[in-house]
């Protein structure tokens, strides 16, 4: 395990390969829930939690089931299975344990079930940290950390977007551009800005 590698993972998954603005994953929730900061942050917290947890679970599934039996070609369907089950379970558990928390981000959990960012991270982890069908040393920690960082990157993009859109509420915008058209334009400009990180070298 190399501590410097954690920093690389952090910088690259939050900024250089930001899950929304560079990899273009999880765009639907990015556009749909970024109208106000509060729900956007609730959604981001839920995404951070789910991505981190699903990184842990999918690592075990991949390492203990798929790799030993040579079934790596089944990873997409098995990952989806695992993530969907996990999210459903978490939703039930939260509803039972803490109604207040459920009201805060319970409604976003079903949205995350089918969020491509979650599956994307799981697939990415299995691509990056498994060399020739073998887990590279420290891959578990790297996977979990990468999940967390991708979630943080998602939160960063959501925070920026919701901040901009909240201010736009008070602007005179041509009717044809209101809401979604303008959000698409903003998202593309932000994405261009994030491409500037591409030149970073370590």
């Amino acid at each position, binding site marked *: 395990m190399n501590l410097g590698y954690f920093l690389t993972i952090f910088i690259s998954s939050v900024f250089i390969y930001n899950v929304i603005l560079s990899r273009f994953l999880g765009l639907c929730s990015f556009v749909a829930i970024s109208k106000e900061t509060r729900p956007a942050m609730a959604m981001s917290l839920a995404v951070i939690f789910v991505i981190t947890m699903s990184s842990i679970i999918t690592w075990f599934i991949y390492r203990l089931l798929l790799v030993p039996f040579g079934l790596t070609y089944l990873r997409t369907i098995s990952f989806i299975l*695992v993530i969907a089950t996990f999210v459903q379970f978490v939703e039930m558990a939260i509803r*039972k344990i803490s109604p207040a928390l459920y009201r805060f981000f319970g409604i976003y959990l079903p949205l995350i079930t089918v969020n491509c960012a979650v599956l994307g991270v799981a697939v990415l982890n299995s691509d990056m940290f498994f060399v020739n069908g073998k887990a590279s040393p420290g891959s578990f920690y790297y996977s979990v950390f990468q999940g967390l960082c991708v979630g943080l990157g998602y939160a960063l993009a959501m925070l920026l977007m919701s901040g901009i859109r909240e201010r736009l509420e008070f602007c005179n915008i041509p009717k044809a551009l209101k809401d979604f058209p303008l959000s698409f334009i903003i998202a593309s400009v932000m994405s261009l800005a994030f491409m500037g990180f591409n030149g970073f070298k370590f």
Partner: protein
Amino acid sequence: MDILIPVLILGGLGFLFGVGLAIASRRLAVKTDPRLEKIHGLLPGSNCGACGGAGCFGFADKLLKGEASVSACRVSEERVKEEIARILGKKLEKDTKLSAILHCGGGKKVKDRFLYDGIEDCISANLALAGEKECVFGCLGYGSCAAICPFGAIHMTGEGLPAVDKARCKACNKCVQACPKKLFSLIPWASNVYIACSSHDTGKDTIKACPVGCIACRKCEQVCPVSAIQIIDNLAVIDYNKCTSCGECVKVCPMKTIRIQA
């Protein structure tokens, strides 16, 4: 044979998760009152908040706990309220039906004091020296009320004034709260007579600013057979507890300030 292992593993995973979720849904089931869903289904679902609850679901919750009465919902029709009261096992207390009305007749008839070039919204316009209209009490005409009305009951007319569609108005009080000039009020649905002015200026000042403002001439006060109208602070005010909508005041009003609702 090669197909067997993947089928077993994936099928096994699916079966395991399915059974796990089934057990979990039993174990972690949250008991909700079946009446809650029923009542929530009957409520209008517009989440206007006029009842004081956090949306219709919050109101349904309050109803079940006995913290609110069914009549607090301004939107539901009478028979729906009766149905809800029946589910709750209570009797429905009757309430006077209300509708919103605008107390201003100025609009484009009132001249501007200066050129306002800011955000086209009444609250913003009101922040700039109480708006550009000559009459500081009158409607600014940017339609914040029309924008906030959850039932589409308010629309802006060509005269620069909002008009309330009485059939759609549910008296949710949103326009009353939103208007920075406090020009709306809720009056009994059955009453037609209303004062189309909110100016507390003296008659002399009002007539300078607006051709249809109340000049406090007291003719309506004198003619009203049930003495329901009073001039308070240079403005005619109708007491709807007394008013019979006879229309005598409408006939004598020299400024056409007192009107009959269309």
